């Protein structure tokens, strides 16, 4: 028993940690989807961009400046992506917006490749959370413990924001009915911008936690965690924030269990298998709402 725990505890801890990081990205997906009915394919690249921002800023300034500036940069980036790639297509068919998001993702990836000359960059060590700690028998970084706590705190704050502020109410209204909200005088563009900014803010924090566990950043580093976070959002029921968080933790943990069993090749494939499974048997996810289409 002791052996079993000591053998598997690192994987479980890693799962919880990575799950929290996925959750941070997944919230961005799920909120945007809730409001625009759009899979924001560029979100994963915003996540990567945050990592690069950290790399470059940390090289020139102290941590207490680079951390907030990275977050600010990411928020502005998320906002600009929305302004440039999605706003002009507000009245276009959904397929066009989705294609635009793929285009934006392609552009961001190429841009990052250009700026970094395609070389992997060393991710800076953020003190304290990079500290090594030992829990029972497992040795891990502090970030493993910080992530789930931070995730929960941020999610609680976000839920408060959505339920108890004016902008939160507007968000809920827009996600229920886009057109009617517009008619009721809600400033749609403002709501959408704020949504993207919140998503990017969380992605920036997620990125700091995620890349602390990895040494290097490459331009496509965000693609896979981005997709997995999206799967988490679908799994939890797209549009639902608690759903996205729970989905992300489940995916993070199961993925690491699969690694523990020795099927590392399949850890990515598993995520997608789970996605297809849920889409077939419960297309609305764990907490999603059924939407009736009018004929």
């Amino acid at each position, binding site marked *: 028993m002791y052996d079993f725990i000591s053998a598997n505890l690192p994987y479980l801890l890693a799962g919880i940690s990575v799950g929290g990081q996925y959750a941070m990205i997944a919230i961005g997906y799920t909120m945007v989807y809730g409001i625009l009915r759009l899979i924001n394919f560029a979100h994963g690249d915003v996540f990567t961009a945050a990592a690069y921002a950290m790399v470059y800023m940390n090289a020139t300034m102290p941590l207490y400046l680079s951390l907030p500036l990275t977050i600010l940069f990411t928020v502005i980036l998320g906002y600009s992506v929305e302004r440039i790639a999605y706003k002009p297509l507000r009245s276009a068919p959904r397929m066009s917006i989705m*294609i635009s998001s793929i*285009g934006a993702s392609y552009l961001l990836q190429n841009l990052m490749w250009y700026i970094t000359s395609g070389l992997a960059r060393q991710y800076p060590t953020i003190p304290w959370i990079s500290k090594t700690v030992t829990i029972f028998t497992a040795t891990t970084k502090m970030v493993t413990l910080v992530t789930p706590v931070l995730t929960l705190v941020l999610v609680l704050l976000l839920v408060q924001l959505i339920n108890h502020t004016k902008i939160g109410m507007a968000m809920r209204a827009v996600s229920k009915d886009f057109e009617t909200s517009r008619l009721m005088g809600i400033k749609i563009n403002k709501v959408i911008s704020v949504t993207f900014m919140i998503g990017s803010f969380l992605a920036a924090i997620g990125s700091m936690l995620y890349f602390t566990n990895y040494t290097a950043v490459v331009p496509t580093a965000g693609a896979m965690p981005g997709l997995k976070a999206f799967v988490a959002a679908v799994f939890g029921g797209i549009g639902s924030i608690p759903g996205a968080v729970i989905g992300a933790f489940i995916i993070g943990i199961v993925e690491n269990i699969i690694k523990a069993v020795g099927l590392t090749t399949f850890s990515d*494939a598993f995520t997608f298998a789970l996605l297809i499974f849920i889409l077939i048997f419960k297309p609305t996810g764990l907490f999603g709402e059924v939407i009736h289409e009018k004929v």
Partner: protein
Amino acid sequence: MKVFKIILSLLLAIIACLLIFFSINALDLSALLKEIVPLETMQQDAGLEKAVKRINDCLADGNQNRALRSLNRLLDDYPDKVHLDVQTKLDLFFYRNNKVMLTLGVYVLFFSAALAVSAFLKQQKHQTAVLVAILVASLYAGIYIVEDLVGVNSMLMTVLKKGAIYALLAVSMNLLNGFTGLFSLGQAGFMLVGAYTYAIFTIENTSRAQVYQYYQGGLVQFTLPTLVAILLAGLAAAFFAFLIGLPVLRLKSDYLAIATLGFAEIIRAVLQYDGLGRITNGSNLLRKFTTFNTALFPFAVSGICIALIALLIHSTYGRSFKAIRDDEVAAEAMGINLFVYKQLAFVISSFFAGIGGALLAMYQTTVQAAAFTSAMTYEILLIVVIGGMGSISGSILASFLFIASSEWWLRFLDNVTYIGTFKVPFFRSGFRMVVFSVIIMVVVLFYRKGIMGDKEFGLKSLMEPRKGGKRRG
């Protein structure tokens, strides 16, 4: 009018035949040289003899260009000694411009044939059919000759080869996304299945031990003929599509996109799985399978496949696909079984994606599952969008433009460039792709219909202005 056309076409045909005759029968240089510099004059002048010998030496080395240059110098140096009458001048001209004249001849012949067709065939439909045949034939003749002129490995041929393959991939994706309205992102997965199926079955038996060095030489120990393997590649992809389509095609637009994307990732993971290594070579690359050298091969295969897709789209099945795209509910009310037709479009599209994957493998000469990422799907999707959702000719055009820009025309952006002492800013590795993706974003945002919209670039639009002219006359 008809008589005039016939006479003109006959005249052109005669000219064409002359051109072709002369360029095929152009004397080779050593024979020509004997005409130009008669033996007795040569023996009178040692310098001249030396020059002639130099030319013959170059010819013996197979260095035609140098031989020609030497000949030019000879003609300049000894203008009074050389013997040049009309006949030899003509021969020399055809020798110098051999390939260009041949091309010209072939095209004049095609043109005269087209004229004759429009004179003799009354029915518009027959005319179109023959004209298309002539166009296609001249296209292939053109590629053949150009390839001979510029060399198989030149940038132009690379672009043509890759462009032809991407054209097939884009058209097959357009069949699904543009014509049937199913937003699928599984293209890379089906290409991968096709590429692997092809590669596995055409690796030389003697090379298998080397390729599958970590897997005891692999399980498959026979080699299929190229075309059979290509067909098998398509069938394998179609089979996977059939299995995947059963559950997935019931999903609505963006769920379908993400589910197909997921399947592509799963296929990629499975093919890299160590347990299947004796077949798929695990995560190592497959190589030493049959490839092609000439651009005619991908053009022929892609051409046939695209023609089949075009025929399908203009058949009763294609009409049903378009109906589903426009309005699922109404299509169903017209007696179209949504599931069957979606499944059909999915399977057919994947079949051709599989063939495209096989061609891509042949083009690359090696293939590795890890390279078939979703980025590849996005690239093809963007080609489809640039060309116009629902336009075959748009997809073809966009493929060549896309490949030409990314591989060739925009290359200069990747090089650090100086104008005088001024260093051009931004120009360095990776800038090309940035510019390129900006262009794509501009198309996606501001020219949402792409180059062609859902129109086709066809003979009809070519003939329209002529009709107008007729009315005036």
